[in-house]
């Protein structure tokens, strides 16, 4: 697969490295001369100096035959414009943009960017998972469905311990998908499963019902 990457910063560099290792043909477009030299020294001649929002540069690197176009500069507006050029001028089938401001997701989607990756959101989610006392952790947002996968830990003093799943009044749109217990196999909860202290529950819910779900499970 031929993949064009815009932006040779940390993200662009490691992405190019990974994709090259998988055997893809990769080309990086980077504005900065010394950064371009660095990438070419490290990865072989895969980086060209230039502005990824300029039609002439994109023509030069053969964007027209690219299967995938990934814009990972630190500026949302540059990533947007580069992807729109790739999509509408060069008909690249798949465009992926990195977002710094999660709020820009709506406009990017509306303008036809195929995939957006919000680095800010991903970092937040990972940090949340590492904070042990956090009552509810976001694991994954299921794209375009309005659903999310979350993790809730039952605290040792929770009034829900000993209750059966059917006795809980779960908010609409929420499903308990998996219970993980220390030293046991993960199990799919049924209506008669009894909750225990330190249960780790993986559930599917909506952003609106998330608060209610947390309250029901933790009883606090």
């Amino acid at each position: 697969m031929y993949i064009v990457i815009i932006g040779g910063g940390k993200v662009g560099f490691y992405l190019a490295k990974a994709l090259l290792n998988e055997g893809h043909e990769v080309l990086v477009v980077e504005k900065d001369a010394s950064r371009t030299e660095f990438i070419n020294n490290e990865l072989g001649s895969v980086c060209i100096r230039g502005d990824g929002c300029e039609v002439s540069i994109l023509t030069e690197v053969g964007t027209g035959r690219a299967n995938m176009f990934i814009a990972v500069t630190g500026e949302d507006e540059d990533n947007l414009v580069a992807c729109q050029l790739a999509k509408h001028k060069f008909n690249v089938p798949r465009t992926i943009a990195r977002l710094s401001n999660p709020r820009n997701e709506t406009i990017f989607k509306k303008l036809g960017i195929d995939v957006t990756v919000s680095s800010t959101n991903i970092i937040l989610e990972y940090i949340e998972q590492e904070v042990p006392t956090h009552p509810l952790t976001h694991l994954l947002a299921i794209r375009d469905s309005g659903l999310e996968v979350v993790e809730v830990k039952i605290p040792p003093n929770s009034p829900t311990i000993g209750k059966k799943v059917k006795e809980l009044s779960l908010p609409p749109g929420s499903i308990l998908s998996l219970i993980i217990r220390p030293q046991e196999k993960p199990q799919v909860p049924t209506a008669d499963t009894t909750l225990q202290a330190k249960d780790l529950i993986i559930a599917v819910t909506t952003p609106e019902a998330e608060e209610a779900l947390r309250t029901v499970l933790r009883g606090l």
Partner: protein
Amino acid sequence: MNIVIMGCGRVGARLAGLLDIEGHSVTILDIEAYSFRWLPPEFAGTALVGDGMDEEVLKKAGIGKADVFVAVTEADNHNIMAAQIAKHLFNVPKVLCRIYDPLRRELFSSLGIEALSPTTTFAQMLKDKIER
């Protein structure tokens, strides 16, 4: 008309002044308060510090009731993104945008953004003057 202008440089400030005298209700945005020094002293509209690519800032500037949105910052991509937010998220009836790069202007015009390129226009004007 309600007009929101993003970018208070020489062009933005001058445009704001002209429209203000005509009696239009003008709000001008810039990320630097210092830029507002370009505005004429008699300017009676609103000058707001903020980034025109930020939806919250646009809402504060009254984008919901705007008849016209003009993007004239120094950066092409800023203008392009803000113009598309105004057009597609806030449905502003008339959106104008400055794009220095003629090739980029061409593409975004075909995508429905009314874009002007001072590069092309000015070069043509100079050529006409030379040949006249």
